[in-house]
């Protein structure tokens, strides 16, 4: 239970993180964590039949949920007066979600529409999922969060109930409160509502570490909706706990390469003239320190000419080489870290987002305070020498490169995986 009051403003944020995600699913049960999130989102038995979100909205709030590699989070923001009601709704579904056969059928259909919307019907919709598939070997690390259609179709109520019993115990959850509330009042409310929840055993998450790739991995995918070819690149990130300093240096490196108008990859005559869009980020979904397992630094660029990908990769390699050889000058480094820090601080200005970020780092690393410290750690703590080392590490590591080919007509055999 994390209480992070901030008396400015009149809203509160609530996030409940469960230590379970799409990497935790066993073989043959892919997509279960996400489907269960949809079911759980409807609310507990006490909230039925109105449902969770209508009640939150009626109190002037909004809420959502998302499933990531290692965590599933339910979050809401609302006027401060809704604090007890939000806690009641959370404890209600933590005690017993309301799952019916009809509910299961409907949400499976809704997820089918979600996959069409987010992946199958839009240009480059398989990004970022295609990168872990190319870079990782373990099935858990390579899968996408939506799961296999055949698995999704096979889920029944007993399976969902077992999933709930195994992963949604109070001991496997972190509840975070932010915003305009009184600490004493909140503590009393939390005790009143959560204390009598029976403790229960939780199935431990598997250790999903896998060795670094021993060769560059390439994949070509046909994209029926793309108008231009594109290239995606994925590098393994350092371990967020044991290699924290290196991890932070990678954040700065990604910002130097691709964030902001004057980013290094936007300036070279080659890269700048080739890419119609370019983004570089840490974390599969662009959020750093979002998983405790193998994670990626990603680049995605759309280019118009056939040889564009080659030029972008050349520019990337040359820039990494230059950074590894000559330390970045103090001025640009300070500018990049100052901007990164302000951006990270900005996210904490929203109580709902703040609750999510505090709870996320608490769930993954037992370090809620990391979220608060991150802007200063990056601004004051990352040196040019560390960035050079990060660049050298990327330069010498084996990455995954995925080419997106527009149109249905993918060259024969191109969809298979190739080793360079």
């Amino acid at each position, binding site marked *: 239970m994390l209480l992070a009051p901030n008396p400015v403003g009149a809203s509160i944020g609530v996030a409940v993180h469960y230590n379970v995600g799409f990497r935790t699913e066993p073989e043959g049960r892919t997509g279960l964590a996400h489907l269960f999130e949809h079911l759980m989102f409807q609310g507990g038995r006490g909230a039925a039949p109105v449902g969770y979100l209508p009640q939150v909205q009626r109190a002037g709030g909004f809420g959502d949920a998302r499933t990531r590699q290692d965590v599933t989070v339910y979050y809401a923001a609302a006027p401060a007066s809704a604090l007890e009601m939000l806690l009641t709704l959370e404890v209600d579904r933590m005690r017993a979600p309301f799952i019916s056969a009809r509910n299961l059928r409907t949400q499976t259909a809704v997820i089918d529409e979600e996959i069409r919307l987010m992946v199958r019907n839009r240009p480059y919709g398989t990004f970022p999922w295609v990168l872990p598939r190319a870079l990782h070997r373990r099935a858990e690390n390579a899968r996408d969060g939506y799961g296999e259609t055949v698995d999704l179709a096979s889920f029944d109520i007993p399976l969902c109930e077992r999933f709930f019993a195994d992963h949604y115990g109070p001991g496997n959850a972190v509840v975070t409160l932010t915003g305009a509330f009184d600490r004493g009042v909140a503590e009393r409310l939390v005790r009143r509502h959560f204390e009598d929840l029976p403790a229960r055993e939780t199935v431990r998450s598997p250790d999903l570490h896998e060795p670094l790739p021993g060769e560059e991995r390439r994949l070509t995918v046909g994209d029926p909706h793309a108008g231009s070819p594109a290239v995606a690149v994925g590098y393994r990130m350092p371990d967020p706990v044991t290699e924290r300093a290196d991890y932070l240096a990678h954040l700065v490196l990604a910002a130097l390469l691709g964030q902001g108008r004057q980013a290094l990859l936007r300036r070279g005559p080659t890269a700048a003239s080739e890419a119609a869009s370019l983004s570089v980020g840490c974390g599969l979904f662009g959020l750093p320190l979002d998983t405790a397992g193998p994670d990626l630094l990603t680049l995605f660029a759309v280019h118009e000419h056939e040889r564009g990908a080659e030029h972008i990769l050349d520019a990337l390699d040359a820039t990494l080489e230059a950074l590894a050889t000559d330390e970045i000058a103090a001025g640009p480094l300070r500018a990049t870290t*100052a901007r990164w820090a302000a951006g990270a601080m900005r996210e904490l200005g929203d109580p709902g987002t703040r609750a999510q970020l505090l709870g996320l780092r608490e769930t993954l690393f037992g370090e809620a305070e990391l979220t608060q410290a991150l802007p200063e750690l990056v601004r004051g703590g990352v040196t040019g020498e560390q960035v050079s080392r990060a660049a050298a590490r990327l330069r010498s590591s084996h990455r995954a490169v995925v080419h997106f080919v527009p149109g249905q007509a993918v060259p024969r055999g191109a969809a298979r995986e190739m080793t360079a």
Partner: protein
Amino acid sequence: MTGGVVQGRRGYGSRPDAGGAQGRLPLPDADIVLGNGLRVVVCSAPVVPLVEIRLTTPYAATAPGEVTHCQLLAELLLRGTAHRDADDYDAALAAHGATLDAAADARRLTVTGHTMADALPAVLALLAEAVRGPRLTEDVLAPERERLARRIRLATHPPAALAQHALLRRRYGEDRAARWQPTPEQAAACTRDDLARLHARHLGARSAVLVLVGDLRPEEAVAMATEVFGAWEPGPEGDVPEVPPWFPGGPLHRVDRPGAVQSVIRLAAPALPRTDPGYPALHLAQLVFGGSFASRLVARLREDKGYAYQLGSGVESVPGASTLMVEADTAAEHTAPALAVIREELERMAADPPSVEEIDAARSYAVGSTATAMSSPGALASGLANLLHVGVGSDWLHNWGPLLEGVAHDEVGEAARRFFRPADFTGVVVADEAAVAPLRRGAAEELGF
């Protein structure tokens, strides 16, 4: 400083009536107009040590190509000034943790950004420098021209963007759509002179609005803005953005997208502008129809049928006009039944008007959620800038709660009857015709689909 009054300071969120008028947002601490016509709106919200910056200059695209040129001007605006090149300019901003981005549509050019609070004077000075004298040289222009052309081309591919383009044509005809839509060809053809002309005409202080929200002292922020922007030339008489005309309902326009695995449905009907006294009642009716998770449409289409993941209704506002929008993305095989459900629910708004319970739920959602959504300084700054752009006062957010509380139940029923008639809607469906056509039988009358 002329013609303005700095209002008494109001602490952000330190409302004495926090429990009573729930969700009542603060009045801005200052709302003044400088001698050159620039309006400055300042709101203290010391949540994090940052200040959010929004600068809007309205304009009216009068000829095809102008909107594209304005977008190009936006691209160039923060790429150096007469005094420093792009690198120097960006480095000066970044040193303060500041980010500024400019964008333009057919009605306004907006600079959006934030800075560390203690650097506000320096960053405002940099903004003023760029706005008054951007570096419009050929060497900066050439690559940006190419880049914009590519970006416009790229932006037309997502199915939702295809639908938006088609819907614009469907609502307002080819001529206006051509005037409001950027094209890659127009980007490629834009000259330095075009940009210089646009800059002289549109980027004056007259009728521009600067919004500052964050960790600031209102009096100081106003003084800073006055000092930095006081010498900004007013420019010619400010353009008044064109009010989009009323458009008729009618058959849906179909856009074939071979290979589409989902159909994009977008329906539209003319509604009341934000400034109209009837707007709050319309908004409540809209929330009952499809604008919240508990709404009739979401309950049926998503939670009952499972036909859509993302769907709902909303009001799209521009200066002088609003459009009621209904949106759903659904698999080919669900397209006809989904349209039938939408039509049924539209009809039901008159046949079975919003109940007292539905209206009260919508009202408490509308009042509270506005305050919740505006609780971050960034959202509040954008919210204020957008509201001022569509012509309501800076006290709109503050008064929104009481305004909604004052709406009688029968006014909502009246709005439901008046604005949700299926015959008043038109729209587009972007779909794989080959997959959808065989399913259309039996649903041919559904909104003309």
